[in-house]
């Protein structure tokens, strides 16, 4: 079974053009002979522990790369040099290959290449429309103010089942992808120290600091901390919204306190603050994405990047609108639109840009383990 698995994966990789991993291998051979970028991020010290770069190494290094861009601007071999070294682009291309190759179910891997803003918004709009029509047919779309009582529109258990199932699916699909990726690597046992370090680097986005604390590159060779900050707003905003949902669930089941909650209650405060972060963060990331230097990253993946960013933004926007107008007659309509958006976000989570989180954390963990092991090479450095 295991070998069949591997065979299938190879076939998929070939179909997707294993050229991306070969290109990473070629570029790493050049970088390994140069090493001027050694202290920008973890990719380069990880590289120096190897002399050859197979597909597994390419996937590992590609997901360790945060696409900060510093190594492109600093590179004496970047285009127009005939060596044409562009590590951020080569790594981005392999990352997409990783997502596609390890996706579960495998057939859904192709979605990574077709996941654009249109698809994401169409999914959200379709789901919202479905809910809106369901309400309209029941004659409950427009209504007297319900004082924020969502359950008068959709029963609590229905929402819990729908979103529980969608979220559960996303978690399962991503977890299977992560396990498949990890199986292809053999970093050694996970120690608490390594796990702690990987977590810290993931939560702090250490490798977007440029190695010197000035940040990474966006539209030119200037360093900026903007991406790190917008990403923090997005991630922590998302986590606050998630916490809000968890607290509300706790209130509902453990304390017997059903929604609606007061504006000053913990779930609403968490959701509001998180929602604001989830507006500012994605807006900033989209703005940076549109101004990115043309050589940075893989421009073909921009639709996928933007789809995820736009869905996050839409989720937050519709959520905040719902909060603001929950005491009016359009609550049911807004609720339907918001739930449709959230459903689209959950369903596309494992087949879009969000996947980078899983593989990046896995790569960070591998690096934290690996760098604690003795280096087998004895290059006599200088």
């Amino acid at each position, binding site marked *: 079974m295991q070998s069949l698995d591997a065979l299938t994966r190879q076939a998929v990789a070939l179909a997707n053009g294993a050229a991306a991993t070969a290109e990473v291998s070629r570029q790493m051979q050049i970088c390994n002979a140069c090493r001027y970028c050694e202290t920008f991020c973890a990719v380069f010290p990880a590289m120096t522990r190897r002399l050859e770069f197979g597909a597994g190494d390419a996937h590992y290094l590609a997901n360790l790369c945060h696409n900060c861009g510093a190594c492109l601007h600093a590179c004496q071999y970047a285009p127009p040099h005939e060596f044409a070294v562009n590590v951020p682009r080569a790594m981005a291309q392999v990352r997409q290959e990783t997502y596609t190759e390890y996706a579960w179910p495998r057939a859904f891997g192709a979605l990574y290449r077709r996941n654009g803003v249109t698809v994401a918004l169409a999914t959200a709009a379709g789901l919202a429309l479905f809910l809106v029509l369901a309400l309209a047919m029941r004659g409950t779309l427009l209504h007297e103010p319900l004082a924020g009582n969502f359950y008068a529109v959709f029963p609590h258990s229905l929402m819990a089942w729908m979103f529980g199932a969608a979220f559960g699916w996303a978690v399962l699909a991503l977890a299977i992808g992560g396990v498949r990726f990890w199986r292809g690597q053999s970093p050694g046992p996970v120690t608490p120290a390594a796990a702690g370090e990987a977590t810290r680097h993931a939560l702090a986005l250490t490798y977007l600091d440029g190695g010197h604390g000035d940040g990474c590159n966006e539209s030119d060779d200037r360093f900026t901390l903007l991406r790190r900050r917008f990403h923090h707003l997005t991630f922590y905003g998302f986590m606050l919204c998630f916490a809000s949902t968890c607290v509300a669930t706790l209130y509902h089941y453990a304390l017997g306190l059903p929604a609606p909650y007061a504006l000053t209650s913990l779930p609403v405060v968490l959701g509001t603050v998180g929602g604001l972060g989830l507006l500012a963060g994605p807006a900033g990331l989209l703005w940076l994405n549109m101004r990115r230097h043309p050589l940075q990253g893989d421009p073909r993946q921009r639709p996928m990047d933007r789809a995820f960013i736009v869905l996050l933004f839409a989720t937050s926007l519709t959520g905040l609108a719902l909060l603001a107008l929950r005491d009016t007659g359009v609550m049911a309509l807004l609720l339907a639109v918001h739930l449709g958006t959230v459903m689209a976000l959950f369903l596309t989570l494992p087949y879009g840009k969000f996947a980078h989180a899983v593989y990046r954390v896995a790569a960070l963990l591998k690096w934290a383990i690996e760098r604690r092991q003795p280096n087998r090479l004895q290059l006599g450095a*200088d």
Partner: protein
Amino acid sequence: MHDVLVIGGGNAALCAALTAREAGARVLLLEASPREWRGGNSQHTRNLRCMHDAPQDVLVDAYPEEEFWQDLLKVTGGNTDERLARLVIRASSTCRDWMRRHGVRFQPSLAGTLHLSRTNAFFMGGGKALVNAYYRSAENLGVDIRYDSPVDRLEIQDGRFVAACVGRERIEARACVLAAGGFESNREWLREAWGQNERGEWPADNFIIRGTRFNQGVLLKHMTAQGADIIGDPTQAHCVAIDARAPLYDGGIVTRVDAVSLGVMVNRDAVRFYDEGEDFWPKRYAIWGRLVALQPGQIGYCIIDSKAVGRFMPPVFPGVKAGTLPELARKLELDEATFMRTLNDYNAACRVGSFDHTVLDDCHTEGLTPPKTHWARPIDQAPFYGYALRPGVTFTYLGLKTDARARVHFGGEPSDNLFVAGEMMAGNVLGRGYTAGVGMSIGTAFGRIAGTQAARAALKEDAHAIA
């Protein structure tokens, strides 16, 4: 009209432009290359050599002035101006904060480069990151920058700079800094300098240029014709042995093959010609370019066996691989019989003690000419690898004679508004030989001196004009 015109776009030119601007001068910098190739050879550098009396930020231990001076004396064989050399050495201890203020970032000292992190401060991201930082800072400070602007001649009157010409355009300024590099990219000039050898070959035809294609030496030649005082020998250059497959220009650091001390080097006739184990590669590799340049066909072959793999920096191109030594000879197109005699003689002469490629170990040859004095182990473990090496010129030493104020001299008389910095005057300090990072130390020290002096000369003249 600008106060100070800086001709060149590498480290020294940028240091001059920045200091002149900081001194209040209006500065125009003319870079010969298009923007994407800016920075001359500085984009290929990695560090600068710094004196320090105690551990300092990225530098460990101490590297006092005297030790730096002795190192310089050793590599140049005394072919250096002590006063200017000591000026560079002292300046190297205080320039890093200034560099940081202009956006240059240094690497924390790495475990693997312990030896060099005592003497050299490494730029984070390398020389191109440094060049980018300086250009950003220059733009922020209001230095005018023009790319694609190769200066082909200067107007000089009575030893004073008047104007520079870019094609038909004439650019006047009150003072000028020349920092346009050497002539290593000028194939014709290299050919002429190296001449024809006893075998009838033109050795320079087989040289590869490790750095920029834009150092054509146009201004060096022009200044010579204008009667400026010249220093240095045109055949002296930083010249290392690099992979023969390297691109003609801009191959930079990756084309080095530092397996030489782990194996043997043979020439086109399949015979050895120098002690490969004389010293560590970083200390000796600058001699191998010249050694290979003196061999027939200007080519050498580094031969190692699989015991050496994983013990030297990975080369950018894979070596020619063979299962047996005769097969390797055939693949490298070397005479098989001679090659086998050379290798067998070497293998038989090896006296293996305790091999350690991180120290000068006791593995050596006996009764062999030339000997291999360290790391001598028989080459006997398949697979075998061969790398063809050619001379790779980094930069030339021929330049303008100068003084502690970076002034250009005409017939022994200093100019009062024409200054020189970087590779165009490095020969004053570095008459021959090389030691890692010293080029950037010279460029930074003299770039800043030239910038300060040029601003002073220009602003003084300005004050006279107003009075």
